[in-house]
């Protein structure tokens, strides 16, 4: 299997894999929202060995991790969140999920200065719990009762990412002689900045795009075209007066 970064053209088959594997599903637009907000964080596993069926074959996605940064961290600490992870049953236990997760975690720290990554998992999901806790080192923060639509509880889990930060610092410090000094300086700097949790997610509220369609009520899901403030009808108001005055 090929483990690589997600591309926009992968998304229909990622959505397909999600629909095959998990009960929590999303509109294509929600995947786009991930791919265009944090393109560094989502990865796919691709079966590159399938014979071509037509000139328009799309690489078969057998696993994916869809990840994001929390936009408004309640605790004020930059952190990542796993929105969805799954592997086709025909390709499980090959280590795919683990590797997808590790790539995503690394990018969370490098690109977005994440301090930890969080996720939810069904309390009955042995395979996933094994992966998160035993293989990747997540800790269970708490149990959330009736978290899932069908009434099942969730473990809310969390993995501290400082070990990656540590690794990066070491690597940069011990890098090639040429860049040695410079990167040491930078490593220090990054540490400081990291502490402030400072980073550059400066978008205005994302509005329509950013909503998790699995959440929230039906009515919201039906909105097709963004109207209203996005169109600046609000701005029209001041104009109305100046026009008549």
């Amino acid at each position, binding site marked *: 299997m090929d483990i690589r970064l997600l591309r926009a053209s992968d998304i229909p088959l990622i959505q397909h894999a999600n629909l095959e594997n998990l*009960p929590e599903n999303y509109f294509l637009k929600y995947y786009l929202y991930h791919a265009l907000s944090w393109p560094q964080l989502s990865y796919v596993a691709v079966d590159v060995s399938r014979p071509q069926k037509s000139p*328009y074959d799309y690489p078969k996605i057998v696993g994916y991790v869809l990840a994001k940064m929390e936009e408004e961290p309640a605790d004020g600490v930059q952190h990542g969140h796993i929105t969805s992870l799954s592997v086709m*049953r025909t390709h499980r236990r090959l280590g795919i999920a683990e590797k997808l997760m590790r790539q995503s975690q690394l990018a969370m720290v490098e*690109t977005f200065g994440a301090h930890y990554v969080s996720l939810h998992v069904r309390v009955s999901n042995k395979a996933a719990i094994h992966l998160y806790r035993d293989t990747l080192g997540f800790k269970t923060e708490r149990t959330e009762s009736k978290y*899932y*639509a069908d009434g099942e509880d969730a473990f809310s889990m969390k993995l501290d990412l400082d070990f990656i930060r540590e690794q990066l610092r070491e690597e940069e410090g011990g890098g090639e002689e040429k860049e040695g000094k410079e990167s040491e300086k930078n490593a220090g700097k990054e540490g400081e900045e990291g502490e402030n949790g400072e980073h550059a997610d400066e978008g205005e509220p994302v509005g329509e795009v950013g909503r998790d369609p699995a959440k929230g009520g039906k009515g919201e899901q*039906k909105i097709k075209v963004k109207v209203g403030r996005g*169109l600046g009808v609000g701005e029209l108001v*001041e104009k109305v007066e100046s026009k008549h*005055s």
Partner: protein
Amino acid sequence: MTQPSSLPPLTPQLCFSTTALRDFLRLSRSAVDDTINQNLNALETPAKAGFDPTSTARLGPRPLSHQIDAASCNAFKDKVLFPSWQVRSDLISYCSLVATSPDPDDPERALREAENEKNWERVIDERLDPYSARYFPREARTEQLAHVLRQEMGANLFRTVIRHYEDKQYKRGLKAAEQILKKNPKHGDTMSMKALILNAQGKTDEAFALAKDALTIDMKSYICWHVYGILYRANKNFDEAIKAYKFALKLEPDSHQIQRDLAVLQIQMRDYPGYIQSRLLMLKSRPQLRQNWTALAIAYHLDGNLQQAENILSTYEKSVTTTPLRTDLENSEALLYKNSIISETGDFERALEHLETDCKNCLDRLAVMELRARYLAQLGRKEDAAKAYRALLDRNAEHPDYYKGLIDALGIAADDEAALKAVYDEYAAKNPRCDAAKRLPLDFLSGDRFRTAAKAYLTLMFDKGVPSTFANLKHLYSDGFKKDTLPVLAEEYLKEHSGATDTGGQTNGDSSKGEGAALYFLAQHYNYYMSRDLSKATDFVEKAIKLDPKNVDFHMTKARIFKHQGEIAKAAEAMDHARSLDTKDRYINSKAAKYQLRNNENEKALATLGLFTRAETVGGPLADLTDMQCIWFLTEDGEAWQRRGNLGLALKRYHTVFNIFDIWQEDQFDFHSFSLRKGQIRAYVDLIRWEDRLREHPFYFRAALDAVNLYLSMHEKPQNGTNGVEGGHANGDDAAEKKKAAKKAKKEAQKAEREAAEKAAKQDPNKKSADGDEVKKKDDDPNGLKLAATADPLGDAMKFLWHLLQFSPKNIEGQIAGFEVFIRRSKYLLALRCLKAALAIDKDHPKIPEQASRLRKALDGAMSSLAPKVKEVIDSELASVPGA
């Protein structure tokens, strides 16, 4: 906290100095009302509430993202908001009083009276000299004041209309609009706003009619034009919307808002020159915003002008005096974007230099490393390239391209198996958990080397009990030797390990490990199309099942074997049994449903899928799967209905797939502005380029081809008034049965609909604001009866066919279907074009001579009706097609 507006001393002077009054009214609004949100945000203390994991929830209701504690909220309300409103309303009532009172102190009174007298004379003059300057009587200052106040209250009402509209409080919005219109029935802007609200309520026709009225009344109002554009946009007529926006802009050239709306539509419609124009204007009006520079660069870039795109980015960079922070993501991405533009020019030397200087601290480390490795390789700097690829492999040893890059850089010959293997071995040793390093050598190794490596790999996987081993290796089967060797190795493994599980030895009682895994591998081997021997496959799978009777994978493969034996019903049953062994896994659930669909059990399949769809979705599993854009189901369901002869439902499903692609195309809309804010420009460009070829996706192709073929068969065998329920392929006894089945299906569908409606009716009305939240448009043809009743199936087929031919021209099946449609519509040139395209794809396709001779015949028959020129062209073209 914002300060409340304070009340200025209330004097008639204040009221009469209308500028001051107006300023006060405007400020008190913009400082308090318009910023309520901001003010509330400012009250928020993020850390106070502690970490709230539900904010990251995938399911369950989303809490308000801003939790402001009640005390500060109330304080804001009591100390700022209400007092400000009070002040304003006090002032307005005071000034109203002034305006309606006698005004003996009016300083202009004498003047006005004098003027009026003069005017008396002027009227006469005017008759003689109609071109003399117009005289407008001076208004009394009380009248002026009254005007301002009326306007303020009118504007307030108009604002209220807009507010309600934005908050989707449509009924209230309409009420406010009516209030204005009662006083001033010809207020174009209000009429327009009313139209906007009507449109949001789904009353599209009424909305357009009203908006048009508004325009005829007030052609000069940019609001009317803007709204007109918005209506068109909302109804997806983007070309007309662009026109309307352009009018609005002509009337109000300084409106950023309209300019932005126009720009977004232009890029959505891929009007690059227009987009460049708009972005130029936007940049000129706000050059201080980086976004505006980036956007213009994107416009040039997409239009193919790399040079100009780069220039724009550079110009901005030069204008910045402070060094951006290293953590400035927008900056980091803009630099990498520029680098991607340079690399598109093919100048890798310069791209590398730019990357190593400007981008060396970019936050997307992976991108920097990958680009660097690629440039080095392109430039032939092998040693550095090798180093760069090694660094990438240290990050991710599961990406075959990196090995390839490293091997190329090392200059290892393709047939030097030992040297190649050594590269992979190094990484296998470094990463014991790495799969690729162990497996990829199997691709190039041959003979004994292959045998040894394959044996080691199989042993490892079987010991671990990895059920996906076969899936991971089957691509090797294109090599005959490997195809023969792998099963032998698996048998060897079996011989060495058989019985081990019985003693519970090395496998810890997990029978999917060891022997079970090897048996499973062999079952899949004999089930695979390149090495198929279904009775052997059955043998092995039964042995495996005996070892572990509850193994889902084993039963799943058993079902697949049935399928290949043509035992569709047994296959469905077996897959459902596999499903029952792990009811928590949706994958096996999906497979069971798919097999039921293949067995034409639509209802059962839907029930199976319903075990995992969201229970609260109105309309049940079908609605959920449709909402969630579950293409595979819609397609398979449609195909099954078609086999059952229910053309209506079949068409319905194919059309649903078609509509989903429309949605996907529209989905990019919001990102034109969103991505500029987020600054992830490379990802955005990737999206735009993908959207351009969206409908080449096999998902589209399959459903569209199904639809075209179904329409073709409907054309051949017109329906006999059974509401499209009887199938094109139905014949004899079959037909009666199918009719019965379809009747039953229809009944069931109606029942489901009824239930859904009841459920919807029972829903808590408080959940949605009763006041006209977006209405889910009711589907007036849920069973596709109207679709099936079409009088022009070939015309309907065109909708699907155009996209097939446009986006997948190299797919021969599309061309063949295209020919069939065109020849029936007597479009001989188009038929010929499909035929020639098919010929270019596969000259030996059996359909080609057949179609060619039919075209020839058709032409001979149509001789008289064709223009001689056309006939000549077709003749000469057709001459080169075999069979014609």
